């Protein structure tokens, strides 16, 4: 176990589930386990001066009452969207990035929930693929939680990889900032599982990505899962326009390309740091000395604070051009940006979300 827990809460009705058995067996004896009637109450508990941070150290194993599949919450008609489908198997994350949107998104519900009835998500996916025969779907678990953090304890990826590897119209995306890949290395993904790393330059990692693996460790982990038969991808999101960012991101891409040939990178995504004023307020209260939260941000038309457009787009272009010179075409897309921004960065208008999603699932160029 690479992260610390203060306690684990188990919903009584789930105590015999496979997930609970695995987790309880893997926990160090120093972590108390408490059985509760309703996990939602434990997840909502507001502890101490920083309930969000406390929630990260309180794992709650419980049933999920809502559907597991949802459209990515970042999607919107105003943006050129990648059509990502989210499979919600957990909520919150043991790492603590100062800019993380979960500080606002799960503020009232901060416990680190892992859903014991996750196998029901497979039934939802089966229904979806039967309703759209022949279509390819890219489904990820890394939106409301990190896909691999605690995987050595939960063992979720063993079931996930097994399920997706057996279905040719599905691609599973496991998105992470960890190097917790031990379980993956023992499995055969049959080309249907993509592991993606969110990457930032060292300067951002040191100031803002607390308890995450270093960028170098993430790249090394990517190399290892690639060698084990997985597809890989990288998310440069959020890109932060700090002083020296152009050099920082260029060097980061160089480090990626030194370790991994461009032709073997499934895709890269780009997105600028964007924060609602409420998120920025919450983040600044928790991390008052983090300079990365104080970029040259202005209020954009979607109500989010972003680096002013010229600065942000210049940074995007530096990264996209670096990949364009990489020797092989690496598909790329933008997250939460307009079609006109997409065109300015990649030189072409974006396709519709369903088409982009399908191309990314199939490993084709999404531009």
């Amino acid at each position, binding site marked *: 176990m690479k992260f610390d827990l203060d306690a684990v809460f188990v919903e009584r009705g789930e105590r015999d589930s496979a997930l609970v058995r695995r987790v309880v067996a893997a926990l160090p004896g120093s972590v108390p386990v408490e059985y509760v009637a309703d996990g939602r109450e434990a997840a909502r508990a507001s502890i101490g001066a920083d309930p969000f941070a406390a929630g990260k150290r309180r794992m709650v194993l419980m049933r999920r009452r809502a559907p597991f599949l949802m459209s990515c919450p970042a999607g919107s008609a105003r943006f050129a969207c990648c059509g990502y489908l989210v499979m919600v198997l957990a909520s919150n994350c043991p790492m603590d990035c100062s800019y993380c949107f979960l500080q606002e998104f799960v503020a009232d519900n901060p416990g680190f929930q892992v859903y014991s009835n996750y196998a029901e998500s497979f039934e939802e996916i089966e229904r979806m693929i039967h309703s759209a025969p022949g279509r390819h779907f890219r489904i990820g678990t890394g939106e409301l939680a990190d896909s691999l953090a605690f995987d050595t304890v939960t063992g979720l990826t063993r079931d996930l990889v097994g399920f997706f590897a057996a279905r040719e119209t599905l691609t599973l995306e496991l998105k992470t900032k960890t190097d917790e890949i031990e379980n993956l290395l023992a499995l055969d993904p049959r080309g249907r599982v993509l592991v993606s790393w969110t990457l930032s330059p060292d300067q951002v990692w040191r100031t803002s990505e607390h308890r995450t693996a270093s960028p170098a460790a993430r790249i090394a982990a990517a190399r290892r899962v690639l060698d084990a038969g997985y597809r890989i991808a990288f998310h440069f999101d959020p890109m932060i326009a700090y002083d020296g960012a152009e050099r920082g991101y260029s060097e980061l891409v160089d480090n990626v390309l030194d370790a991994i040939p461009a032709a073997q990178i499934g895709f890269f995504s780009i997105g600028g740091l964007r924060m609602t004023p409420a998120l920025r307020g919450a983040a600044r209260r928790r991390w008052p000395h983090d300079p990365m939260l104080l970029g*040259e941000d202005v*209020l954009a038309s979607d109500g989010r604070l972003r680096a*002013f457009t*010229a*600065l942000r787009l210049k940074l*995007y272009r530096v990264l996209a051009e670096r990949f364009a010179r990489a020797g092989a075409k690496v598909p790329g897309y933008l997250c939460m940006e307009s079609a006109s921004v997409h065109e300015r960065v990649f030189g072409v208008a974006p396709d519709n979300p369903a088409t982009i999603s399908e191309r990314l699932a199939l490993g084709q160029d999404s531009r």
Partner: protein
Amino acid sequence: MRRESASTTDYGIRALAAARRLPEPHLARWLAMDAPSRAGFLEIAQALRLRTGQLVVALDLLGEIAVREGKAGAEILARPELARIAARAGSTPERARAFIDAIRAIRFPRLTETAARLNSAIGELRLPRGISIVLPAELGSDVLTIKLEVSREGDLDRAIGILARHRAAIARILATLGGSDEV
């Protein structure tokens, strides 16, 4: 001696905050600065007779610059572009406005520089009355607004002709707005 001086400064800060009805969190932030920064800001606030809104904005910006640059408030306030404003001639309200503009420029250096460059490029077009090019607020989008005010067909033809003549220059402004120029 030093304790006396700090206490005099804090008395001055509290008195000014009370007179201006400065919100409590901002007063707390001011009092939490190191002694030279507290005193330096008080000196400027008194000299420029900063109003409540200006105090709030200046304290916010000063605090953010301190985090961005890892410097104390006193160091920032001692910069020539700020010190000059406090010392120069002119009306107090005008100097107070200039101080806020200057501290904002330190907080948003590239935004200030890019906006100035774009405004200069628009000015160089010397567009006649009735044609205006408006940058997006705070350069927060890549959309340039071109406004024509015409009442006769002839005015419309003339305005479109002028825009057509300036097409290349306007395209350069658009490109800069989209980050393709040096920012």
